[in-house]
């Protein structure tokens, strides 16, 4: 297995308060890594460090290193290039207040693609990959804000794909969605896994069990355990993991 992301001794702080404590883990190419843990366990902080979305959080600081494809995200990567390669889907859908088409074309345009024909191809391909094409193919030039919540979230996934990333980070992507929309997004994730490396932060342990190849359990800023999904859910090594996955606390 090819190592895609290497995290070494990563600690993170907000105004000096510890949010992540010496996290070490490796994410492999083409896997789905689920990250579970209760609120304030540092899952989202961890995720947002991978594509430097933490840069805008007031008071954020870090120690240690995150390397993607062997290059340090804070030292070697150009930030726009990093965020193009490491796409992100947020807990709340973040459609931009422009048309569906322009939402999809936004990333490619920013990275220099001008040809209308090429953009149309990207838009169609991305929407199909996110299982949204059939629902919006006649609404491409309507505002993306008019779509339903589940459609908006799939739009955001499609938009991320349109930038042709290698890694996609999901930050509780189904937290505001109904079960049917959730199922559609999970289906999309499993399909995407063939091409991309996915990291999924979720509050829904069942979702992590359904979707991921491996699962990491975070608690109070610490990485407690990381292993294959089945092992984490059936024979966890740490009793805190066992407590969480069996629903005894969290």
């Amino acid at each position, binding site marked *: 297995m090819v190592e895609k992301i290497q995290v070494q001794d990563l600690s993170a702080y907000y105004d000096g308060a510890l949010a992540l404590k010496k996290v070490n883990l490796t994410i492999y190419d083409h896997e789905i890594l689920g990250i579970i843990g209760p609120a304030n366990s540092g899952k989202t902080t961890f995720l947002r460090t991978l594509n430097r*979305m933490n840069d*805008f959080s*007031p008071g954020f600081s870090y120690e240690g290193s995150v390397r993607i494809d062997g290059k340090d995200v804070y030292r070697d990567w150009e930030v726009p*290039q990093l*965020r193009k390669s490491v796409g992100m889907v*947020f807990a709340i859908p973040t459609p*931009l*207040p422009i048309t569906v088409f322009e939402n999809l074309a936004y990333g490619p345009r*920013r990275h220099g693609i001008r040809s209308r024909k090429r953009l149309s191809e990207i838009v169609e391909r991305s929407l199909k990959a996110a299982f949204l094409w059939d629902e919006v193919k006649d609404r491409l030039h309507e505002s993306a804000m008019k779509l339903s919540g589940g459609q908006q979230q799939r739009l955001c996934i499609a938009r991320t794909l349109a930038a042709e990333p290698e890694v996609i980070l999901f930050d509780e992507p189904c937290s505001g969605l109904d079960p049917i929309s959730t199922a559609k997004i999970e289906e999309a994730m499993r399909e995407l896994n063939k091409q991309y490396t996915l990291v999924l932060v979720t509050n829904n342990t069942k979702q992590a069990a359904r979707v991921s190849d491996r699962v990491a359990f975070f608690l109070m800023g610490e990485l407690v355990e990381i292993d294959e999904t089945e092992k984490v859910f059936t024979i966890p090594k740490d009793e805190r993991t066992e407590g969480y996955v069996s629903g005894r606390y969290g």
Partner: protein
Amino acid sequence: MRRYYERVVEGLVFASGMASIIFVILIFVFLLKEGLMLFREFSVIKFLLGKHWYPISEPPQFGTLPLILGSLWVTLGATAISVPLGIACAIFIGEIASGWLREVLKAGVELLAAIPSIVLGFIGLVTLVPLVKNMFGLSTGLTAFSGSVMLAFMAMPTIVSIMEDALNLVPKTYREGSIAMGATKWQTIRRIILPSAASGIIAAVMLGFGRVIGETMAVMMITGNAAVIPKSIFQPVRTMTATIAAEMGETVQGSDHYFALFAVAILLFVITFAVNFLADWFLHRKKAR
């Protein structure tokens, strides 16, 4: 007992709310009553398009074109200076500066709003006017341009604070969505944030414009007060506001000159009302969507 109390409070609040509208209507009615008297003898067309403002010649001429143009030159000049500066300033405060710098700048802008216009006019008179005179080799520094620069300072706080509010209203998800796509900060501001805040920005500009066109003391001090049609921005002009302020003290109540000044006031009122109305329309158009 309690019910009566509620009613009384409701009534008082209602009356206070209505008062502002009633005052505006009363002011307008009063202006109309006095101002329209002029047009018993003087034609409206001559008033609006007449090229000469000679209120004490015989017969008097009340052509307001020089005054309107004077106000327009000064106001447009001030707008041309303060809008780009104000927009840039608001973007910097709202989107780029952080922490203490942002607070200092915000306080600075608010302080600028607190400076009395007479003080700004005075400072302009002793610093800006000679500077303009020497820089452009003019016979006098008391020009529309000097007034524009001075008024730009006065419009800045209005423009900056309203625009900054507009930028703040842009949802955080737009920024994150754009940044996460690999857009740079500037691309995000230009492509997403400014278009989303467009109506607020237009409203800010309109209100800045309204602030400037109504300003009196500072322009009276530094624009030279010559009621002639200006051929360039480097000539002395006289604005509508300055005319009223300068001449009202010398007129006989009930004379044509007196009525003419009220007619100028009506004109000014109509212009500011229209500008405010447009600003409001832009602000509310946003909310309706």
